[in-house]
Structures are given as C-alpha cells and as structure tokens.
C-alpha cells in the first residue's frame, strides 16, 4: 500500500494493526499523530511528552538528512539506542513512531504494517 492518501478506513486499519503490535513482546508503545488527532499507547504514560518530542525530532531530522542527501521522501527512520529503538514514518498525513526494545526486529514491523 503506498504510504500516502490514506483514507479514514485505511487509518482505522492501521490503528487496529498497531493495537496488535502493541501487545507483542518488546514493544513499548506507539504514537500515531494526524492533523487533528493522535492515538497514543505507551507502557509508561508519564513519558508521553518525552516520547512525543523524540518522535517529532526523529521525523524532522530524518527528513532533513534525507533532503541533504537527496534520497527523496524518508519512508522510514530508525533510531537505535543502547536501550531501545524507535521506528518512525510518515503515512499520508499521519506521523507514526513505534517504540521498542532494542532486540525487536523493526523490519518485521514494517512488513506487518504493509509498508514494504
């Protein structure tokens, strides 16, 4: 499915998929931010703001670097840290970040999200 022009129904499907992903081992949570609303599901709700800032920074810096290297739109941006990993992507008008433990296979998540 191309990552653009998602209909409301497709976004609802995506939210359903995310709810399934959230229950998997090693998944810390996700933030799906649209133009008018956001779905947030994190294990530790006290860290919502920190996660949201990290998500926004990753998406913005990732696209800036993609522009610098002229590789077009960033389909996915992965931050790998010592403790955790973040997979971020822009799907239509929505910005998605999935937070996970560092040993989770993010490629599998991309496949499950039907983005590869």
């Amino acid at each position: 499915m191309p990552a653009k022009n998602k209909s409301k129904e497709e976004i609802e499907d995506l939210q359903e998929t995310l709810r399934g992903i959230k229950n998997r081992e090693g998944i810390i949570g996700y933030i799906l931010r649209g133009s008018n609303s956001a779905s947030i599901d994190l294990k530790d709700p006290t860290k919502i703001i920190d996660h949201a800032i990290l998500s926004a920074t990753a998406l913005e810096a990732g696209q800036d670097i993609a522009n610098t290297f002229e590789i077009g739109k960033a389909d996915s941006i992965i931050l790998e840290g010592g403790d955790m990993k973040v997979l971020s992507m822009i799907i239509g008008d929505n910005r998605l970040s999935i937070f996970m433990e560092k040993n989770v296979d993010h490629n599998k998540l991309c496949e499950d999200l039907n983005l590869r």
Partner: protein
Amino acid sequence: MSQNAYADALKNALTEIKKICSDVSRSFIFRRDGMIVAGDSETTKETVEKTVHSFQSIVEKEDMIGGLKALIIDGENGKVHISCVNDMYLALAASKNADATFLQAITHVIVPTVLKLLESTTPTPLQFAPSKQLIVDTLSGFFTGDSVQIDLEVLKQWSELLNRKNVGEVEIEAFGGKTTQCSVREINDPKLKGKGIIRIPERICKVLEVKKGEIVRVKPTEV
C-alpha cells in the same frame, strides 16, 4: 601521526571503500560534538555540516534511548546510515538497493579496524581540538580589546585534554560559515560565569556576522 595525517588516512580509507562498493555514494566521519574528522573526496562541506546539525538535534535527546548508536533513513531513492564507530559517527549514503550486509560490514568491521590500526600507529593518543557551541554575548566599550572571554572551566578542560599549560587562542566559527582566530581569556564578570556563553568584542562580531544570542562553535587553535 599528526591530526592531519590521521584525517588524510581516514579520507583515503573512505574513498577506497567507495571504490569497492559502488552502492556507497558519500561517506564521512564526525565526532559527537560535531567536529568533522574526515570525509571522502566527493562529499561537500555543506552536506556534512547540514547532516551533523540535523543529527545533533537527535543526539540532544539520546538519553531517552540509552545513547544513540545508529540512525538509519530509508528514502525513496536511497538510504543513509549513521553509525557509532568507537567514539565517532560514520555517515554513509547508499543506493536504495545497497547490500545491507555489506553496509554493516563497513560500519562494524572495516572502519573500526582502520581506526584501530591508525590509533595503533599513533605514538600518543589522538587529541582533536574539542569544539564547544557557545552563546554569543557582545563586549562593548573602549577597553574591550581583541580578546574573547570564555568560562575558565572550559579553558581548563581544553588544557587538560590537549596536555597544554594553557589555551591562549581560539578559533570561532559562526553558523554562517565565517571564521576567525583570536586570543582568549576567562570571563571576568562573575554573573556571567557557567552560562555557556562567549563574550566577543563587537568588532569581532561584525567579522563573524553574528549577534548577541546566536550560537558559535569554538575550539582551541592548533599549536
């Protein structure tokens, strides 16, 4: 081995890597403080600086993920890998279909080996001039002189790292690209100490084309 020879050796290594892997289009190495260590012959300074600037906005938030080890961007027409190698970061731009295993080999085996080899041939530990990003505060008046003022703590850190008795001169780089070298002394106003600022005489501000509140990169000049 001097710092320049080290950078040249790394630059050659990156250029050779590019030759054996045609999927790699650009590569360079930078330190976490933003200082550029080496880049292949085709990567422009502008590309490096823009990348480092964007990357540092993520590094500022790295505590949340336990330190940033890698940033991988999969784009429509290619990919960019920025990986932590020893205490530095290696940035690689590659084609969309570049072999992920080979890219991993470059970042996890080839470049670390080259770095280890270079360091083993260095008689003393490599010391790059550690740059700092400081906020500009202007100095005005008849008696300002031509020296900039920086926190004594920063000057002490540089002296210790560079194994010098003291640091008497610094290089200042504005984000607009203007640079200058000038003598340095400690901040004499106690109210301004420990605030991460650099006090720059107005005349030097004009040379650098910076104003109060802007950020500049400062490092000790090489001896």
